[in-house]
């Protein structure tokens, strides 16, 4: 594609000096953003830099405190989401804001239902929804299915279909790839390409720099609520420069390697032939102290179910889980926690956090007894310890009393991690631990995971980022359709090897089962 | 059971006696508390009491919010004690539950007049004015017995008021006892809640439960409006209905004689008004002029006469509008 920046296309959107304050924080402090038609404009910045806030201002979700927005050269104000949608701004929010109780099609057309005289035309909507989903490469998602029963990836696809259905001039995507696997990211990029050629502009937010290289035209970097660089070419700016711009420091060596050999001791965690009907079956593995096991696989393969079952959050239909020689009570989270297990769940908002409570109280949630005597809690020491744990994962802003809901997505993820650090458990299960976490913080989390392992913690990691799984773990299990299709040391296989094995499994099962939706 | 209603009874708001008892005397502060005025009879009780007080320029009546919460009613009496009123006229939601606080008031030198629902200690009230709930049931039952005229196969139905109240139990007991005397029994019984709507609902179901009825006693004329509506809806005419309490509506219906409603048993709604009058006399240390006894009596039990087409005119003028 030829360089668009060469030609002076008049900007479609100009945001100038945008200021947005929340009680106690100035989330945006004079941000500028210029977007031209037909470009993919990437927005970069650390967790809490203000990216989501900026696009919420653009989409009318937040009222702006200061600054101006020009739309096709005309000043405009997006007073509420409806105004923005009407003008032609469609948004895929970072937090999947779908209505669980409604069907896929209803969610896609929410707010602009196909209707005559207020009476919905469900058949029309289902048909259009099916087409949109097909465009996105997901014909298997039935438009009548209830959204609440979809995996997070499925929900992300629905969100995208919803944005497409608006036929907008600007489509804002706030970390759309966070929950997608490589296949689906390819599909997404194909759609973005189509949109760009049809003249629409995309604002794309992601913490994965390699994606930005593949798809972006230009980029703007935010730091602490200010624009620190704009109009940079997405393909040619070096990674080091970008990280420097975002963090103000240089970050290197993404995956810290094992420094010491694994001790030859008996396994800390033994999973023996566990299974659950219609989810997964016959999963067995051992984890020794200091070892990191990675579960690789496509979204929906059942990896979350496996580690939730190990943790006791789901009741196993078959098989046993043993920690330190002691068999865990089936389906009992508290006995798992008691025995030294910890889980960072996949959906931090619904499964991990008490959104309206303070940071430190969320962190100490699993260790309440430790900071209490005879059931009477010692607020001071608890808060101090939790604060220290928050610092060790660098939760920003550094305020233990902050309400979780007001933290940026990546920082919320760190709070869940801090919870289990504080509890200092023997076995840690991590489901998508770096989802939505920025490069800098991700390196810190990787280092932290390594440190934990080196200190003798046994870890199980699930991630849709295959490189991450391979880079971090000592041994990798590839899961497809609820079965272990490969089990071996991580340096014996690469990303394409993993995909090959999954595809091989897929081919055999689809032949047997037919439609595997 | 008829005819004992004295001049200080049902008609007292209308007639004024001509003794010097009604002459203005020392200022009398009276506290008044009654259950929530959630149905016509109870509304009339308060209204009559207030009207009675207005007739005397020496009465200062303090009316507390009607309530069905004994705890709140106790605190109302406590407030009256704090205010050092001269007398308290108390229609308790539950007589037994208000006994302790009434005694407290008596101990504080306040004259307490107990209305309608009796305390369980004689020391808790100077005088008690009672309607006769058991007698009401007896009157209704006796009327049915008279009409049945010895036929023991008659079907009798009963629509009671709020079933958890002791007064409802008393009425039902009286009704049953009177029926037993002439060999009848209550074949079907439902309970309503003293409201038009609950009467309609209870009656609708009852009429289904009993395909043929000869006599139907309904405890309360308020809910009776609903009961009549249900009877009309169900197109039932084969029985005689007897009302209770004696509202003006019902008496007019009895007079018109074009419905199944042929009689009602009066439960005077002037009890509290009488109690106000007595309280004033007691505070001003006067006696009841119509009696030869010098002191105001300890207890006054008002009778529960049956009103039919024949005597309705006598009672209509003192009946309450519901």
């Amino acid at each position: 594609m030829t360089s668009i920046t060469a030609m002076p296309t008049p900007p479609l959107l100009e945001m100038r000096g945008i200021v947005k304050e929340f009680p106690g924080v100035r989330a945006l402090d004079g941000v500028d953003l210029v977007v031209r038609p037909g470009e993919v404009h990437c927005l970069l910045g650390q967790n809490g830099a203000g990216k989501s806030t900026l696009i919420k201002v653009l989409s009318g979700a937040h009222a702006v405190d200061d600054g101006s927005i020009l739309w096709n050269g005309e000043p405009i104000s997006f007073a509420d989401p409806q105004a923005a949608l009407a003008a032609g701004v469609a948004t895929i929010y970072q937090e999947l804001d779908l209505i669980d109780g409604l069907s896929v099609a209803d969610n896609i057309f929410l707010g602009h239902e196909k209707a005559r005289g207020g009476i919905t035309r469900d058949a029309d909507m289902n048909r259009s929804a099916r087409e949109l989903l097909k465009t996105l490469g997901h014909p298997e998602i039935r438009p009548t299915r209830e959204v609440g029963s979809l995996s997070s990836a499925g929900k992300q696809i629905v969100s995208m279909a919803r944005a497409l259905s608006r036929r907008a001039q600007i489509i804002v995507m706030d970390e759309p790839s966070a929950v997608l696997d490589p296949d689906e990211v390819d599909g997404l990029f194909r759609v973005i390409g189509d949109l760009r050629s049809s003249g629409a502009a995309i604002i794309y937010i992601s913490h994965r720099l390699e994606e930005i290289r593949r798809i972006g035209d230009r980029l703007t970097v935010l730091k602490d609520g200010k624009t620190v660089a704009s109009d940079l070419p997405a393909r040619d700016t070096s990674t080091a420069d970008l990280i420097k711009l975002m963090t103000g420091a240089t970050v290197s060596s993404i995956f810290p390697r094992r420094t010491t050999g694994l001790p030859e001791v008996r396994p800390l965690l033994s999973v023996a032939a566990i299974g659950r009907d219609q989810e997964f079956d016959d999963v067995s593995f051992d984890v020794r102290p200091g070892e990191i096991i990675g579960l690789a696989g496509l979204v929906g393969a059942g990896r979350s179910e496996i580690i939730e079952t190990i943790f006791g959050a789901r009741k196993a239909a078959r098989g046993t889980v043993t920690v330190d020689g002691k068999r865990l009570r089936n389906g009992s989270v508290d006995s798992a926690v008691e025995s030294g297990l910890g889980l960072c769940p996949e959906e931090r908002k619904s499964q991990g956090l008490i959104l309206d409570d303070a940071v430190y109280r969320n962190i100490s949630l699993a260790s309440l007894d430790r900071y209490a005597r005879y059931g009477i809690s010692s607020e001071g020491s608890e808060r101090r310890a939790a604060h220290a744990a928050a610092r060790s994962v660098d939760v920003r802003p550094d305020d233990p009393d902050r309400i979780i809901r007001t933290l940026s997505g990546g920082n919320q993820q760190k709070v869940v991690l801090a919870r289990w650090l504080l509890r200092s458990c023997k076995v840690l299960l991590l489901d998508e631990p770096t989802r939505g976490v920025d490069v800098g913080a991700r390196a810190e989390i990787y280092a932290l995971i390594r440190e934990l392992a080196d200190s003798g913690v046994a870890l199980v990691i699930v991630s849709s980022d295959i490189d991450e799984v391979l880079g971090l773990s000592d041994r990798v299990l590839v899961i497809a359709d609820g079965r272990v299709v490969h089990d071996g040391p991580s340096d014996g296989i690469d990303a394409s090897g993993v995909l090959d094995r999954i595809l091989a499994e897929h081919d055999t099962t689809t032949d047997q089962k037919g439609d595997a939706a | 059971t008829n005819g004992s209603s004295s001049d200080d009874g049902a008609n007292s708001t209308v007639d004024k006696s001509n003794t010097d008892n009604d002459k203005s005397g020392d200022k009398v502060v009276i506290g008044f508390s009654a259950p929530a005025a959630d149905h016509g009879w109870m509304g009339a009780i308060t209204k009559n009491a207030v009207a009675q007080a207005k007739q005397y320029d020496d009465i200062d009546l303090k009316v507390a919010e009607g309530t069905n919460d004994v705890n709140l009613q106790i605190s109302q009496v406590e407030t009256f004690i704090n205010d050092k009123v001269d007398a308290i006229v108390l229609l308790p939601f539950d007589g037994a539950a208000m006994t302790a606080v009434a005694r407290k008031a008596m101990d504080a030198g306040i004259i307490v007049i107990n209305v309608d629902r009796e305390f369980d200690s004689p020391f808790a009230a100077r005088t008690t004015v009672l309607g006769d709930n058991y007698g009401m049931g007896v009157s209704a039952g006796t009327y049915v017995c008279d009409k049945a005229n010895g036929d023991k196969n008659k079907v009798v139905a009963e629509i009671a008021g709020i079933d958890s109240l002791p007064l409802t139990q008393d009425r039902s007991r009286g009704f049953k006892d009177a029926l037993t005397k002439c060999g009848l029994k209550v074949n079907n019984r439902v309970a309503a809640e003293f409201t038009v709507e609950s009467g309609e609902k209870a009656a609708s179901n009852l009429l289904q439960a009993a395909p043929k009825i000869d006599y139907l006693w309904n405890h309360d004329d308020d809910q009776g409006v609903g009961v009549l509506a249900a009877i009309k809806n169900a197109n039932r005419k084969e029985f005689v209905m007897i009302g209770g309490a004696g509202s003006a509506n019902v008496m007019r219906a009895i007079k018109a004689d074009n419905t199944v409603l042929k009689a009602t048993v009066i439960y005077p709604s002037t009890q509290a008004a009488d109690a106000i009058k007595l309280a004033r006399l007691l505070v001003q240390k006067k006696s009841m002029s119509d009696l030869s006894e010098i002191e105001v009596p300890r207890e006054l039990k008002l009778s529960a006469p049956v009103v039919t087409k024949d005597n309705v005119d006598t009672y209509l003028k003192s009946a309450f509008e519901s």
Partner: protein
Amino acid sequence: MSATDTSTTLPSTAGRGGGSLGVARNLGLVIALVLLCVVGIITSGDRFASTDNMLTILRLAAVIGVVSIGMTFVITGGGIDLSVGAIVALSSVWATTTGTQSMADDFGWIVMVFSAVIVGTACGVVNGVLIAYGKIVPFIATLAMLASARGLAEIIADRKTQIITDQGFTDFFGAEPLGIPMIVIIFALVTLVGWFLLNRTTFGRRTFAVGGNPEAARLAGIKVQRHTVYLYALLGTTCGIAAVMLMSRTTTGSSTHGLGYELDAIAAVVIGGTLLSGGRGTVIGTLFGVIIFTTLTNVFTLNNLSTSAQAVAKGVIIVVAVLLQQRIADRKT
């Protein structure tokens, strides 16, 4: 406690239980109703199974039924309304004052119907505005309305039962076209319209959205506050209609009408399968809920059960029915 709702097994039925006819959920209700009828027939035989008795049950269900349909919308939309009984009372009183009745003499009884419905709707709008724009939690706002509306009704009626003299009114609503009582017909119509509105219109779709995730609904461009007002206004309207039905049934307007409707209506809605936390609602379920409760009382009365025993039995039956229903729903998924 919602603790147990967010367990890992998710219901497989779609949010709009009515739309997909939520077989699994309603099956439990159907079974409960059938069991109840079997008990009725065994204990009371023909007295229970007669057409007359069926019509009696429907007539009794009609008034609270109409309110419950309205309540289904408010609860599905994430709200609650404790003031329905008081609104019914106020509407009935307003529509039967001598003033209104004399206007009705001049312009026809439709005046009474209109005033009841308008008063009901107005109360609903007040509720809605307090909740949506005043940001008062629904529980408190409607509790305040409960107190005020009933107090106002008492003041207007002066605690007297107001009798309807207009023959046309009683004739019209007392009629039984094709043997079906008018108020049962009205109930059926309201149910139908309610079902259609919830499941086949954008209004219904938005109600689910507002109740399921108000913030997401707002981001999708739905005017959440305005919609909230509509929902309470709609419930107010059904309260007005219920008042008219009650007026026709009792030929009176009274400040004691509608006592205790709030809990009855909410219970019927929730037993029917609508989520108290919003986002999931079914008109058909509510219909079943209302009929089950009414049939229960009917069977009790036919069996001459004492009120206390009725209360105990009712509590136990509710628990057993809900547990049963859950078992069936679980097995189906």
